[in-house]
């Protein structure tokens, strides 16, 4: 218990950052270097913070009680999905660093907007955000982030073994060839982008009460770069990579706390050394080489679609 008191926030933060790493990993599954996650994270947070503090919603809060919290998650998810499509469709015509920068531009535009609007509390931001389900301690947020994380991992695992996941991989390796082989690049790139946006938005909506306050500093360029580092240091070719990277890199400055002034220097050195010695990321090194695929036995003649696979009927 004492352990949770002291390190609960850190543990929850590790999961939270792992989730944000995953949100960046989603577009990367389709080869898209999008750094928009902090923007959606910030948006999700603002939606939650506004619904939880703005007098205009006091009726809702009274009526729904704790039910308001899931509602903030849902609304954040929807808003991020919508904005994801609006931004994604034009932006995903860009490639590589150009896309990265366009998405950073998106993050910056949102940041400047939130600095200037009254509903977002300007530079001070929103504060006094009530706690869900009577949470008293930060570690209790594990009850939110852990299930979300498990769901996200299941989601991504299933995804990567599915037809959609294959389409993502095809685009990641060679967009033009994927197109020629029948995979619509736009459709799947936008889908991957939106998945990341929704995840970041939900995490944001859970994080506003978690941090007690919300302001324009939540969605910045620095955060974009940090999430990217999570994915790359963790390993960009496995769902575990962003998670492990996010958890470890966000914990690192805390682990180094005793070094006081020197901790960020060491933190920097760790980043350099990790990049040099873990070129495939932490997870890339841990995960064993994939086993050679085993061949399924063909089904007996009378079960399912069978017979000669290629007939003009199946075309």
């Amino acid at each position: 218990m004492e352990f949770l008191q002291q390190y609960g926030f850190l543990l929850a933060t590790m999961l939270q950052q792992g989730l944000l790493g995953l949100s960046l990993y989603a577009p990367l599954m389709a080869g898209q270097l999008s750094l928009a996650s902090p923007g959606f994270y910030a948006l999700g947070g603002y939606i939650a913070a506004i619904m939880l503090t703005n007098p205009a919603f006091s009726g809702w809060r009274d009526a729904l009680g704790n039910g308001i919290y899931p509602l903030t998650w849902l609304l954040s998810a929807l808003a991020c999905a919508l904005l994801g499509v609006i931004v994604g469709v034009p932006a995903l015509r860009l490639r590589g660093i150009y896309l990265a920068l366009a998405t950073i531009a998106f993050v910056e535009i949102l940041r400047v907007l939130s600095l200037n609007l009254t509903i977002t509390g300007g530079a001070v931001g929103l504060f006094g955000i009530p706690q869900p389900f009577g949470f008293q301690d930060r570690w209790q947020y594990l009850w939110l982030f852990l299930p979300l994380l498990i769901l996200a991992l299941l989601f991504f695992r299933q995804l990567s073994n599915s037809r959609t996941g294959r389409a993502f991989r095809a685009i990641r390796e060679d967009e033009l060839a994927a197109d020629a082989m029948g995979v619509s690049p736009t459709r799947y790139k936008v889908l991957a982008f939106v998945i990341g946006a929704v995840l970041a938005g939900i995490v944001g909506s859970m994080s506003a009460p978690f941090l007690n306050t919300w302001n324009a500093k939540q969605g910045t360029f620095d955060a974009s770069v940090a999430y990217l580092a999570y994915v790359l240091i963790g390993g960009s070719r496995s769902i575990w990579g962003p998670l492990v990277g996010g958890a470890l890199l966000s914990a690192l400055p805390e682990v180094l706390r005793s070094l006081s002034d020197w901790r960020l220097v060491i933190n920097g050195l760790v980043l350099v050394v990790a990049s040099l010695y873990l070129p495939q990321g932490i997870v890339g090194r841990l995960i064993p080489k994939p086993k050679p695929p085993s061949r399924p036995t063909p089904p007996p003649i009378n079960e399912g679609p069978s017979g000669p696979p290629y007939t003009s009927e199946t075309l």
Partner: protein
Amino acid sequence: SPIPIGIAVAQTSNASLFGQEQVIGARLAEKFLNARGGVGGTPIKLVFQDTSGDEAGAINAFQNLISKDNVVGIVGPTLSQQAFSADPIADRAKVPVLGPSNTAKGIPQIGAYISRVSAPVTAIAPNALKQALKINPKIKKVAVLYAQNDAFSTSETGIFQQTAKDLDLNVATVQKFQTTDNDFTTQVTAVLGENVDLVIISGLANDSGNLIKQLRQLGYKGLIVGGNGLNSSSMFPICGQYCDGVIVAQAYSPTQSSAANQLFAREYKAQYKKDPPQFAAQAYTGVQVFVDALKVLDHKKKIADWDLSDLRIALNKQLLIGKYKTPLGDLSFDKDGDIVQQAFYVAQIKMKDTKNGTFVFLK
């Protein structure tokens, strides 16, 4: 064993410019107060936890201080936004917090355990404008500039603009900038285009230093009034000679005559060869307030005999009712925990050479 008091300020990140002054102020307080017998003979021990510049860092620092370092109270964090994030943690844990530099509206209202020694902007700003009018009664047209991404500056500029209206001044233009900006030619040429007699700046030391320098270099001749963020000698190296004559609203003045301040200012100057900045003074004050309140409790029952959680609760109660003679002058707290400061100051910058200068106290 010594009594642990937590200092959670930004020792790293770009807020460390303030954080490092706060560390110095707190360290001086520790040294001094212990030299004068600490709390009834028991020395205090400051426990420093870096908050870095973000919200999560502040929460982590607070949690460490509360659960691991078992401090009796916390001075911190550096930024208002961090306070909104971390203070509720301490409040729920019933650990008294003194904000050394959180000036945004609503901070003492976070909870019963949250107080601050940094005066809110409302109190300080108007004086400076009145001083400017005293110096040049013919002022009619003013320009207002402020750092739009800084919580403190945005609220301060509101006060400035309101006061200007109340004084029948004509606010010809309002220009915004970012604390990270370096180049202000656009804002400056806009100001020059309006032919104003007074420029009012709310920002932090670096950006304001550059802004003032560029205003002067490009030919602005009139008076300049700066908000509380300019109350820092770290501005001098940036604007050099051009700082000369700037009128600054202050929550702290090195010239303040109280004994506490004279002692503090002398020691600071001996070590650092310049006047103590406000951030150091406020951090010093934070520590001192805790120590003074602890002394009262110690009279009732030796600190060592208190149960920690009882002590924290009692400390908070005591802290709020006490009166303190500090480098900031005499102060006490209102029922929310907001500072009631007896004196505010207006000073004018006098540069000795390109790097060194002083804030000359204006009556």
